[in-house]
């Protein structure tokens, strides 16, 4: 590490915050409110290629058509790929250190054709594998706010049973 020089000045952006307020849109909101109010996953189906997207988005990119038809999707699925995060970093959404280690994975929910990114409750890489079955674990009823984090994580299902 370079030693800190007193003759060269740096200033910090300080404690000031610049909060943003993002819109999920009507479709994204539908996905989030279904989870918040009913602990259910909804997808949206492309009228042209028939692919089902989760989370809900308005446009199918490859077909470039707008989608309308909402379809239920399972809260179980399988791992497409994963990593176990071990380095500490500050989460820019909270300003706090993200608790590590944690596993996050690309997850393919049964009945959908797209993937979502979420936590899995296992941090030993030896115990994780591509194709492993997982199931969503939701936050308690009084804690769900309409965020992807209303899903606490996905639980690795026992493969032996």
């Amino acid at each position: 590490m370079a030693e800190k020089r007193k003759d060269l000045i740096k200033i910090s952006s300080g404690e000031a915050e610049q909060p943003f307020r993002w819109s999920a849109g009507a479709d994204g909101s539908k996905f989030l409110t279904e989870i918040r109010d009913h602990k259910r996953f909804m997808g949206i189906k492309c009228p042209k290629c028939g692919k089902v997207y989760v989370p809900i988005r308005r446009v199918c990119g490859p077909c470039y058509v707008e989608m309308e038809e909402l379809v239920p999707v399972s809260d179980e699925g399988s791992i497409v790929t994963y990593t176990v995060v071990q380095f500490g970093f500050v989460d820019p959404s909270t300003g706090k250190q993200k608790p590590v280690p944690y596993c996050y994975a690309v997850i393919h929910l049964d009945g959908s054709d797209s993937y979502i990114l979420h936590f899995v409750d296992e941090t030993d890489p030896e115990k994780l594998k591509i194709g492993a079955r997982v199931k969503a674990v939701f936050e308690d009823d009084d804690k769900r706010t309409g965020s992807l984090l209303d899903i606490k994580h996905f639980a690795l299902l026992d493969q032996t049973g």
Partner: protein
Amino acid sequence: MAKKRVAVTGVGMTKQRSSRPDVTGIELINEAVRAALDDAGITRKDVDAIVIGNMDHFEGINYVDTWSVDGNGALMKPIMKVCTGGTTGTTVAMAAYYHVASGLFDKVLAIAWEKNSESDTTGAIITAFDPFWDRPCFAGAVAGLALEATQYMAETGATEEDAAYVAVRDRKHALLNPYAHLHINLTIEMVMESPYLSWPVKMGDMCPRTDGACALIFASEDVVDEFPHRPAWILAVADRHLWAYTSDPYVNQKMVGGTWFPAMEKATEEIYSKVGITDPLNQFDLAELYLPYSFAGLRYMESLGFCDRGGGPELVRSGATDLGGKCPVNPSGGVLSSNAIGATGLLRVAECALQLQGRAGERQVPNARLALATGFGGCFWSDELILGVDKPEKPRG
């Protein structure tokens, strides 16, 4: 269609360093621009237009074109900023190329830079991703790339040690480049013993965070003779972008007709057909690839057609991509040795130009005539440029 043939005729860069508290961003940019103008034997007055780029968020300066106008040389001249994430530097090169190829400008200055030391890189990268669907779980570039590494190893049987060969190669090359940031005589053991950042990616597999800038002069065929160095011709460019969500590239493997890394495969198909590349390993004299971590140096060789799927480890272990091998990859030391993110893509083009001009010093590839440069970014986006010593027969897109 392109109206003019275009060459790189001047190269300037700062030394890539972990932190440059002695300069502001404007002054850092100025160092590279001054070097490029001197190298090309021209002054600010001769420049017709400027393209500049860096990563949004990283320095918290969002109007860099205007903010840096004293340093970038654009005072009272046309300038535009481009930012395409990790591919920014190569997109800056392509935008400068478009300016000149269109016939509207003869001499265009391309600038790309970053001061990674001024913010937390992982935090800055996370803010580039979707606030609803990505940010809650995402852990920046390291973990995003680790997802790819896990999949690659599972599908091909490649090992962490295979990847370590890439890191060792690039950092050995960097020892010959005084402008590189990391000068570490790395060994396979050192990579393997380095701590996991995000399994299966270790500290030794990752690029550093760097402060640095790069500037190039792009010139029309009508004026190339005014410059002291031989032109490094841009033979063709191609780029492909995918959807934005972090999990989308894995969907795209099935949905957009690619098999593996669709954006790179489609860009490669286009650019190789334009230039007539059918056997890249034997036709290119060198490649400067945006490999942000070691595993990329295996998998991307396959998407670029240097070997069959799953053949990356054998190719790299054979030494064919080392300096002195059939097609040296990253003679500059690559991204694994210097990563001032906004500048990184443009540095790939800069190294190709220096090599083709025979000005690459101790790391010179003998008689280099044809070179491939790539940019990587976002959710597996891909920019590609091919440069050559021989003037193309006609202007080409």
